[in-house]
């Protein structure tokens, strides 16, 4: 994050201050950027959040462990499942509950489907922010097909509340596996089309190549994770490095890049979608079709989690997502901290990368970092 630029004198007539957001098509959710411009060039950027602040962490301190469950999925709207999984996993770890194997496979399938839906929305977003509105319409259509699968699997399209402490809520409906395969085939064909339409498009290439370069040195200093770090050549992925659920039984490649600009980040995510589809096909082939999907649970109305603390993390579409939970042995938690990757990417990293960028590219830069404001303000 750059220091306050004291050389900027707004009364000199050389600079103009503009607000991009909170309502702007190029902003990823309700947040705003306070930009100081010299001509078309951004000379200072400050991120402002708080438009979606609902105090989730405080609310959770007042509710019992099971009452918190419908709250957590609302922390990242396009990607609620990771919150469900992490909250369930962190409570299970402190309670000593081990979900059955079938639940582990169903959870992995649920998380990978969520990753696909989130990436599809993002892929449309990066296309739209560089003037390729058609890509947005295509990807959102296929995202809807994935949401249809969620509706079948969980009963809901957005906030599924499928992964619960102890396991999952339901088995797969009859015929789901065949329908899921068809959707995956369709998305794979779409990705091939997007490769031609977006990644070979000269307008997209000209505008996104060289935009918002993240150097390797920046990665650890700014706490950059996920595809933003992998596009800089940093070969890290929690699913492979610290496997959870059944990721250690799946074959997949960790995609990395070198150029570390907006184009490279888009390519890394595009290739990761193929890997996600590859994983889901393995899950559909190999997951157990019989057996329990819910562990024996205490009476959730009088559920006291033993005193302790832990941190559980998972690789979401934007990198490391984590839940830090502190309990004191009562029916209420003492403290929960939700660690979302956007916290760093949308504030410290965005404020650094925006400087020197053309105002017209700010929206594309922001989308290329893939941020969700609600996980910043929680």
């Amino acid at each position, binding site marked *: 994050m750059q220091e*306050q630029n004291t050389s900027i004198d707004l009364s000199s007539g050389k600079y103009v201050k503009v607000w991009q957001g909170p309502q702007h098509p190029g902003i990823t959710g309700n947040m705003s950027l306070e930009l100081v411009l010299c001509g078309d060039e951004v000379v200072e950027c400050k991120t402002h959040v708080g438009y979606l602040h609902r105090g989730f962490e405080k609310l959770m301190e007042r509710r019992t462990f099971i009452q918190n469950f419908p709250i957590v999925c609302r922390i990242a709207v396009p990607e609620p499942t990771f919150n469900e999984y992490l909250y369930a996993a962190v409570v299970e770890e402190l309670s000593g509950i081990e979900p059955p194997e079938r639940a582990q496979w169903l959870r992995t399938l649920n998380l990978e489907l969520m990753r696909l839906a989130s990436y599809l929305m993002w892929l449309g977003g990066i296309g739209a922010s560089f003037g390729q509105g058609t890509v947005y319409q295509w990807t959102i259509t296929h995202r809807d097909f994935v949401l249809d699968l969620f509706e079948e699997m969980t009963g809901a399209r957005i906030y599924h509340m499928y992964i619960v402490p102890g396991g999952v809520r339901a088995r797969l409906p009859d015929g789901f596996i065949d329908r899921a395969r068809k959707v995956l085939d369709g998305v794979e064909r779409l990705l091939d089309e997007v490769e031609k339409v977006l990644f070979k498009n000269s307008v997209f290439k000209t505008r996104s190549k060289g935009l918002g370069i993240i150097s390797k040195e920046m990665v650890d200093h*700014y706490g950059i994770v996920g595809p933003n770090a992998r596009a800089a050549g940093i070969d890290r992925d929690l699913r492979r490095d610290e496997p959870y659920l059944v990721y250690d039984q799946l074959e997949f490649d960790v995609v990395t890049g070198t150029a570390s600009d907006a184009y490279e980040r888009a390519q890394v995510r595009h290739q990761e979608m193929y890997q996600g589809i590859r994983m889901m096909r393995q899950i559909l082939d190999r997951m157990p079709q019989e057996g329990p999907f819910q562990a024996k649970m205490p009476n959730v109305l009088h559920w006291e989690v033993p005193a302790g603390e832990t941190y559980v993390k998972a690789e979401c579409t934007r990198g490391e997502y984590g839940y*830090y939970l502190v309990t004191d042995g009562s029916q209420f938690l003492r403290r929960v901290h939700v660690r979302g990757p956007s916290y760093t990417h949308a504030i410290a990293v965005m404020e650094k990368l925006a400087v020197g960028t053309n105002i017209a590219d700010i929206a594309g830069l922001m989308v290329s970092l893939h941020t969700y404001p609600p996980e910043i303000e929680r």
Partner: protein
Amino acid sequence: MSNDPNSIIERLSDHYQITEVKEQKASLMFLKIPKEDAVQFIRELRDGAHYTHLNFLTAIDYIEDGHFTLTYMLHNYDLHHSIGVHVDIDREAAEMDSIHELWAQAQTYQRELREMYGIRFPGSPRLDDDFCLEGWDEIPPLRKEFDTVAYSRDRFFDREGRLTEDPRTVMRQIMYPTHSDSTD
């Protein structure tokens, strides 16, 4: 020289007063360090032991004991191991040294902790800028004594026609209107 987490902590314990070491799982350990040594200790973990990633910085309010506990979660990508460094600070004079020079994103965490807990980090850039609350002049909202229900009652009107907030009573009134006289 062995490079596993226990050896690292053993080595550092020659120079620092490390207490309450607890291994939560193979990949996660917690420990406590006195406030005055904390930043130097964290710097050594980062530079000397490759705990280069700051996962997060947050606070826990122990109102009954009169202190906040700060948790600095650091991660070593080579060992795939995290250390949660606990630092107790006095609740009444809540102040801690800043780590904004160690990690660029730390100043955002410190700005949030100033707003949500009233903890000051002298020298941290833009510390007094709003994080997500605008013009907040109440008790910092994540402190335990801040009562969200009382705050809402003081500020907002009850919705007309809604006589109770107890979900059990509300549902009973909706589902069994003729038997909902009692409000046990």
